[in-house]
């Protein structure tokens, strides 16, 4: 009887199996997963509603006594244990009895919970008759994939899961899952493709090239998939001609394939052939044959193109289509936010960024953009603040139009005024980046980081943003150094940060300069290559330090000794001028000029001692004397000195 039942299960599996994606039954991808609450053997409750903010959960319905129904489950379990960081969450669900489950747990030591169902949940998921039934649930508890049956279906399920994992940018795990499949079936072209794309996404171009090459030697689908991938690799390597040749070959061999048109579109766009690029992106969207992530990429690229020419509504529709295909597409999700931002719809923008953050809470891009949107919204809500900014912006705009510089110079020309600086959006050139808003992220982050040091005051982003809006200045106008300079002067910023972002196939190149708005001198030029977004936070922190160092070196704080008693000195600079605890100053003495053959020869000022700030108040600071050639007195000049860490170590001078 039992044997007969198993045969029945197997034959049904063979009939119904292989229905990955949309299925004939009631469960289809795109619908909400039916929620439930179940217990494991030890009585712990598991509630699916609590998983709604998790990126992915695999519900695996299996029979605790049937090994074939556990095959895929055990592979997943091993992978989940090996790649704990990748957050591969699996719940096993079974109709088996408690003692059968216990026996299974004792034998297999699974890392996942085994939930005991009494029939209700299996019915909801139509998993009573066929095991295994696998349901992959994505963000917001949406069903992404549904599979029934073991054997070949398990293979298909694993490949699909590898693809999903790749979409989540968990490249290591994606590679591992596809390896698992390839080990059992070396001819699985799809699994090998996923593996090669994982290498490409990791930036390991040589590995990707090798894998795609091997794939392209296989007849049929392998050749097409391999050459498609190779075209992308060569485009990234800057071997444009090779990439184009391969793209053409694929087009001839498999005219229905979409992805090569994205590759061609990107190449054309970076050659400034915008119209031709648009045509290619459109073809990519129209053509049906593509892996889901390729298709999503095509929609996103066409969306980016539309956004770049100001067609925000159209762009949003395309981004939505991209996300529908790939719910983990964080780029398309946050790109949608950018289109709202450009239209000043901050609340909608914030919603999109928050959604992006549920996909990856550590995403620097989305985090920075969300923070900025929150700030803008807060200003809109706070009426007093809004009035202040409106007035200020009007005033600044009027000054800009009249070409009037801000406040007059103070009488005391030696004492430093606060170091105010501002950034204007960088001009974007080169290719069409997959992700919109790099310039905003950079300028926002740098402003915040510089502000946080207390040494530099970055002009509030809200004001800059509103002023640009009022004056109707875009990044192309701001690329003109004259315009940027005038803007800086109006904002009373001593320094203005401006530059260009080049989107290259293998990353983004920032070329940035600081301009002195009073002298038009360029005290600092920085070029930096951002290859992946993984280390973006760190790269920006380094950039921040580099800028800060240049500012301290080129514009040291200068002031006077107000009082000097014994070992203590008071100076006329405080937190408002940018003094930070621990800052060191040299006390300097101007040298008497020497008269020689009718000319006055002026020497460099001589350092006669050093002090270190131990207490900071708004307009003054107290410092202790580190060394002195003579007792310091009122009106002695002081000048900031770059921190010397070795000296700091030995002094142990904690306040």
């Amino acid at each position, binding site marked *: 009887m039992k044997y007969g039942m198993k045969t029945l299960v197997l034959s049904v599996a063979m009939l119904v199996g292989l229905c990955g994606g949309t299925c004939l039954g009631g469960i289809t991808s795109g619908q909400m997963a039916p929620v439930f609450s179940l217990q494991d053997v030890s009585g712990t409750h598991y509630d699916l509603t609590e998983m709604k903010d998790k990126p992915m959960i695999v519900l695996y319905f299996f029979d605790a006594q049937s090994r074939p129904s556990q095959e895929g489950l055990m592979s997943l379990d091993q992978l989940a244990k090996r790649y704990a960081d990748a957050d591969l969450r699996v719940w096993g669900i079974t109709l088996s009895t408690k003692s059968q489950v216990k026996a299974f747990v004792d034998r297999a030591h699974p890392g996942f919970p085994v939930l005991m169902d009494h029939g209700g949940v299996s019915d909801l998921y139509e998993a009573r008759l066929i095991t295994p039934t696998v349901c992959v649930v994505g963000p917001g508890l949406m069903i992404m994939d549904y599979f029934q049956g073991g054997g070949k279906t398990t293979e298909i399920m694993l490949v699909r899961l590898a693809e999903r994992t790749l979409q989540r940018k968990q490249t290591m795990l994606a590679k591992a899952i596809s390896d698992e499949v390839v080990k059992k079936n070396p001819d699985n072209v799809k699994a090998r493709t996923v593996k090669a794309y994982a290498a490409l996404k990791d930036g390991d*171009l*040589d590995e990707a090239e090798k894998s795609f090459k091997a794939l392209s030697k296989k007849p049929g689908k392998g050749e097409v998939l391999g050459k498609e991938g190779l075209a992308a690799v060569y485009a990234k*390597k*800057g071997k*444009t*001609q090779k990439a184009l040749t391969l793209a053409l070959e694929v087009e001839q061999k498999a005219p229905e394939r979409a992805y090569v048109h994205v590759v061609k579109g990107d190449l054309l766009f970076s*050659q*400034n*052939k915008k119209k031709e690029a648009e045509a290619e992106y459109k073809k990519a969207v129209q053509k049906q044959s593509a892996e889901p992530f390729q298709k999503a990429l095509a929609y996103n690229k066409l969306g980016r193109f539309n956004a770049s020419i100001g067609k925000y509504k159209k762009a949003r529709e395309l981004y939505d289509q991209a996300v529908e295909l790939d719910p983990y597409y964080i780029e398309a999700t946050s790109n949608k936010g950018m289109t709202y931002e450009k239209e000043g719809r901050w609340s909608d923008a914030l919603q999109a960024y928050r959604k992006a953050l549920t996909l990856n809470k550590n995403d620097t891009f989305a985090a920075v953009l969300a923070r900025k949107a929150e700030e803008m919204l807060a200003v809109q809500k706070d009426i007093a603040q809004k009035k202040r900014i409106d007035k200020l912006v009007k005033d600044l705009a009027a000054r800009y139009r009249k070409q009037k510089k801000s406040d007059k110079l103070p009488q005391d020309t030696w004492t430093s005024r606060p170091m105010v600086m501002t950034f204007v959006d960088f001009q974007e*050139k080169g290719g069409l980046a997959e992700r919109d808003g790099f310039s905003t992220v950079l300028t926002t982050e740098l402003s915040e*980081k510089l502000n*946080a*040091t*207390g*040494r*530099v005051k970055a002009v509030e982003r809200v004001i800059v943003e509103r002023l640009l809006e009022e004056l109707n200045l875009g990044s192309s106008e701001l690329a003109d*150094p004259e315009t940027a300079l005038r803007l800086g002067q109006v904002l009373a910023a001593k320094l203005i940060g401006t530059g*260009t972002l*080049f989107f*290259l196939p293998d990353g983004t*190149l920032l*070329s940035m300069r600081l301009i002195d708005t009073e002298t038009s001198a360029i005290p600092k030029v920085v*070029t*930096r*290559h951002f290859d992946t977004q993984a280390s973006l936070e*760190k*790269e920006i*922190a*380094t950039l*921040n*330090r580099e800028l*800060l*160092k240049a500012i*301290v070196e080129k514009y040291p704080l200068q002031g006077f000794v107000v009082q000097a008693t014994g070992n203590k000195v008071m100076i006329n600079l405080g937190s408002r001028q*940018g003094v*930070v*605890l*621990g*800052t*060191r100053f040299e006390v300097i003495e101007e040298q008497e000029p020497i008269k020689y053959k009718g000319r006055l020869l002026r020497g460099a000022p001589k350092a006669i001692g050093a002090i270190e700030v131990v*207490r*900071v108040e708004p307009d003054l600071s107290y410092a202790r004397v580190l060394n002195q050639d003579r007792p310091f007195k009122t009106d002695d000049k002081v000048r900031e000195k*770059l*921190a010397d*860490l070795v000296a*700091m*170590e030995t002094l*142990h001078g*904690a*306040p």
Partner: protein
Amino acid sequence: MISARKHRACLWLFGCLIFCLCSSMAVVYGEPYRQAYPMPIAELDQVVTDWFKLQGFHVDRRPLEMGGIELFCRKGDESGCIVLSPRSALATQLRTTWAWGKGSNVSMLKELNLHIQAYLNGETQKTPPQPPKTGGPMVPPQVLSQIESVVCLKAALSEADTQFSGFIVDPHGLILTTAHGVKGLEEVTVVLYDGRQLKGTVIKIDHHRDLAFVDVDGTFSSYISVADGRNLLGIGEWLFTVGCPIDLRGTVYGGMVNGPPRRVHDQLLWQVDMEIHPGSSGSPVFDVEGNLVAVVKGRFRGTDTVGFLIPLETIVLFARDM
């Protein structure tokens, strides 16, 4: 039997108590540890907090007077306090009163120190440009950043269209290229990096040195200064060229000086192992620091990888004769 909630409340109170003790530094059993790092306080705060969290600690923070931060870290019965205080805008001191629980604190702080050092070194190693690896040349940003100054030159000749490279050398639109490209021409079409096409006039040509100047109208913020170039190259030195072979603006190739300078008709040329294609002539060549060192003259006939470069010295002499 204490309920879980009460238990949590007790833990919190205990935490607060420790926090206060930590602030007053009344109980210190471990060796106090003190180290300054060259980074702003916010950055060090991030690095330290991330590290503790990665070790499974729970981190509470409290702002101190004048920009300082106190971090209270707790994991099971291990807990301790880190005080960060600014030592100028660019440096921060980390001080600890790690004091309670297990005795593994010293080694733990050593690890933290190593982690911060590695964080700092990770990027300092990145700054000096690395020579390209075989297989995938890594182009230094100093070179890439000059891509905007490179132009494509085109002309329609009676027999066929010709196309070669050049670069802007001053803000007023003076373009340097090879003379053999503009031979017999008075005007050429100049395609800028951003795709704009301008009319260029050949204003000076020196067939002997194989160099020419083309002039276009306009002002240019990015240009490659000949005066800032570098003359003497070493054998085996890595070089990069940015040009527009086969009509692709901004194509970058890497290569290596593979022999001593050669003398051809009393002119010195560098021989390089570098991919050079039709249309590369006139491309600027840079060292790994992004200094202009030469101009591409052409390739050895029949190969794509043996090329000849006109050294900076010749360019300077040519420019000086203006």
